[in-house]
């Protein structure tokens, strides 16, 4: 049995941020995540570090929080933030009144803006719709959510934090009405681990109510599904927003070699059962295509959705529900932290840890806003220049990942899950979506004896099914062609399954 002070459930941005904050304030802690880091909404979002502009009209408080955190993250997280800048573009027919509200809102909150002509906007982003009326420049940035989680966790690891990924919490241990620990199942081995702590933090996003209910508590939430698409190309170097009230398909964010566009907003009941509809994909493409016409013809490599853990509200349209967050003290040693945004994760963690410190009657100020994230040098991705020097043993041609890099991650993390390699190296993130390289990565894991041959077959099967769920809504054009080839490889050449 492991004993610690604070148990954090959830390895999204919030959970990882809390772990870092606790580490910097010297509080022993243990983080449990049922999948890999950023497996929920954190990893299923745009990767937009908001300037706050998106919320100035509907939610000025959230907008102010976003802008403050935007400034902080740019400073402490240089290596996971790309300072792209952003544009709010006004297209023919878009309300001029909203433009006035937007500018006034930005001024009130303190977000710097610059109104630029359509000519100037086209100079900055040549792929923009040439018919745009004007654009407003804001300090939006692109952020890598997975890397952000890893960098936060690094601080915890350096200061003796205990981390378990791929462990699912199945029980909250209680005694005399207080939560004193958790039981978690190792997803790979089925082994059950018991961890005891004084405080339990439920930072599980869309799953918050499920976890709270294990302790007989409740977290009233509205779950809103948002879908996004990824293009095979980077069509813009700046974040592009539509200058209108928040709506479907109004944001495009560049990230590494691709662009993400979204989102939609549909109420859902169960965060484990979310699908995508063709109509959502069509909506996103045609709306994004209004801002950048190439969207209508470019290759879409994947569509995916995440669930926004929004606090319950009477407002019917999820676009209008506050993006603010809330800390709930269940009064039994468990806290839930819900709502919020990726951009404000650090602030959420700070407030959460402030509450924990108060309950421990300890005084130590938060330092997460001043100290740069640990491990940025080694975790700052895998630069192209480095990848090219390793060209000889490339396992993933789309993202130029070498065998050496795959072996390094396996050795470093001891992982038995091919998804962990994909998250840490970008293996399988390119146009073939792992169709070729996952067969190889599993072969390498096998060669290194971290998994058995039988496990590698099961994982390959599981991977192909999961992969298909992501790409099936983006199957036309070249992506359909690629998919037909991959299907031919596994079902034809490799005779992986037989028809019934």
């Amino acid at each position: 049995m492991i004993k610690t002070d604070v148990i954090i459930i959830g390895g999204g941005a919030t959970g990882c941020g809390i772990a870092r904050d606790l580490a910097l304030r010297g509080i022993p802690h243990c983080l449990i995540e049922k999948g890999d880091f950023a497996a929920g909404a954190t990893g299923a979002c745009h990767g937009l570090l908001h300037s706050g502009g998106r919320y100035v009209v509907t939610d000025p408080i959230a907008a102010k929080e976003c802008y403050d955190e935007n400034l902080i993250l740019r400073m402490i997280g240089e290596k996971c933030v790309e300072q792209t800048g952003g544009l709010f573009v006004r297209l023919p027919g878009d309300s001029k009144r909203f433009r006035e509200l937007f500018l006034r809102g930005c001024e009130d909150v303190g977000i710097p803006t610059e109104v630029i002509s359509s000519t100037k906007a086209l100079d900055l982003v040549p792929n923009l719709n040439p018919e745009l009326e004007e654009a407003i420049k804001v300090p939006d940035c692109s952020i890598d959510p997975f890397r952000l989680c890893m960098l936060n966790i690094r601080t915890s690891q350096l200061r003796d934090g205990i981390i378990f990924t791929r462990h699912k919490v199945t029980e909250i241990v209680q005694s005399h009405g207080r939560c004193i620990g958790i039981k978690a199942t190792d997803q790979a081995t089925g082994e059950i681990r018991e961890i005891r702590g004084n405080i339990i933090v439920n930072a599980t996003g869309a799953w918050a109510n499920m976890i709270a209910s294990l302790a007989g508590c409740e977290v009233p939430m509205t779950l809103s599904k948002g879908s996004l698409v990824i293009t095979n190309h980077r069509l813009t170097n700046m974040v592009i927003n539509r200058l209108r009230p928040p709506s479907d398909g109004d944001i495009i964010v560049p990230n590494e070699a691709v662009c993400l566009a979204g989102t939609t907003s549909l109420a859902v009941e169960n965060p484990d059962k979310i699908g995508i509809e063709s109509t959502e994909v069509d909506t996103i493409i045609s709306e994004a295509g209004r801002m950048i016409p190439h969207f209508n013809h470019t290759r879409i490599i994947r569509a995916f959705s995440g669930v926004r853990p929004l606090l319950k509200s009477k407002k019917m349209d999820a676009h209008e529900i506050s993006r603010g967050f809330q800390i709930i003290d269940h009064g039994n040693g468990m806290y839930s932290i819900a709502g919020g945004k990726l951009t404000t994760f650090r602030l959420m963690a700070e407030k959460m840890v402030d509450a924990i410190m108060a309950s421990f009657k300890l005084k130590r100020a938060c330092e997460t806003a001043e100290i740069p994230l640990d491990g940025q040098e080694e975790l700052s991705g895998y630069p192209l220049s480095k990848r090219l020097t390793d060209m000889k043993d490339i396992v993933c041609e789309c993202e130029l990942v070498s065998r050496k890099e795959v072996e390094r991650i396996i050795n470093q993390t001891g992982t038995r899950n091919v998804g962990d390699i994909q998250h840490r190296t970008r293996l399988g993130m390119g146009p073939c979506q792992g169709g070729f390289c996952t067969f190889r990565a599993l072969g390498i894991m096998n060669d290194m004896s971290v998994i058995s041959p039988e496990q590698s077959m099961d994982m390959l099967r599981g991977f192909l099914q999961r992969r298909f769920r992501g790409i099936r809504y983006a199957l036309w054009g070249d992506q359909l062609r690629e998919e037909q080839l991959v299907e031919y490889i596994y079902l034809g050449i490799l005779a992986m399954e037989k028809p019934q």
Partner: protein
Amino acid sequence: MSVTEYDVIILGAGVAGLTAGAFLAGRGFKVALVTSGEPTACLSTGCIDVCSRNNNPLAGIKALPAEHPFHLVPEKTIRESLDNFQAVMTYMGIPYTGAAEENRLVLSALGTFKTSCLVPSTMKAVPQDTKDSIHIITFAGLKDFYPSYILSRRKNAKFSVYDAGVSSTMGIASHFEEKEFLESFIDWLKGQNIVEDKIAFPAVLGLESADEIVQTIAAHIGKPVFEIPTIPPSMPGRRLFNALKDYFRKKGGDIYWEWPVIGVEKSGKIIEAVMTASTGRPNSINGKAFILATGSFVGGGLTAGRDSITENIFNLPVHSPGPRETWFENDYFSFNHGIGRAGIKVDSSLRPAESPWENIFVCGGILADTEILKNGCGHGLALATAHMAAQSCMEHIR
């Protein structure tokens, strides 16, 4: 613009196009083959799947759904096309094993058995059950072959690793064409003192002389040797393509390589010419008849848009399973994805149905209702429909 005159113009350089082309060129017609580049045959295992749904492929064909294009080809023609293929490949030095009445098993790189009909002789010694023990030889750094996948299914298998100095499929295959390399490899192999019944290799045993190399190794070690097809790039697929292409040329056919078709000239119910892009000026290639063998989506014959599917050369009507939602099932491994039925519907002489053109004949993977993966009928259907299309084309010209 330059103009060239032919009797028949074949569109597509896969198994179907090259077979139809050689058939016609061998009968004295002036044939041009126009292709935008390498066919999907190069990505294939090189095996001729005829119908894997029954141990007897011909019986399997009879049981296919009524709309399957195999039913348009008389059994006699199917047999002839397979016999002819075996004769051609023997003549070209890439002999094939098998017969139309009985399927064979090929060991896959995952250790499963793939069902096929005619297979390259380098796969002749594949054990047809799990009894024989096998010893797998793999090569250092070869990234598309992992013996452990096979070991997961065959308890009586072992493996050894040879360092060929190169790690790519093509690189190792070209080394095997060198006498010295082969000799030192055989010396090494002898030193392995293999006790298993048979020796298996990923399919890298030579570019063109694989049959001879397999026999040489087998003779020196005294054990049967066979190849396991790998994921692309696939040497057996490339050998198949090269042999068919060289045979077509030997018969007098012209190949316009990497000349994508950019337009069509037509008059009334007749296609008169295809316009092709090439460096310099566009070319117009005139023909009396046209054989469409451009393949399905991977081959580039069909393109799926967001709302509809189009045929890329003549804009023929495409039979589509329905709107986009119907193209794929949720279960990846279902084998019933609607997209497998997309293609060109044809009449009994393989002319496109519901289309005015009298001198287009369609064969191979672009045909509708093939469901190639489910029925295991890829190259076999290509051979049979190519013969049929070539015959219809001959009748049309006469």
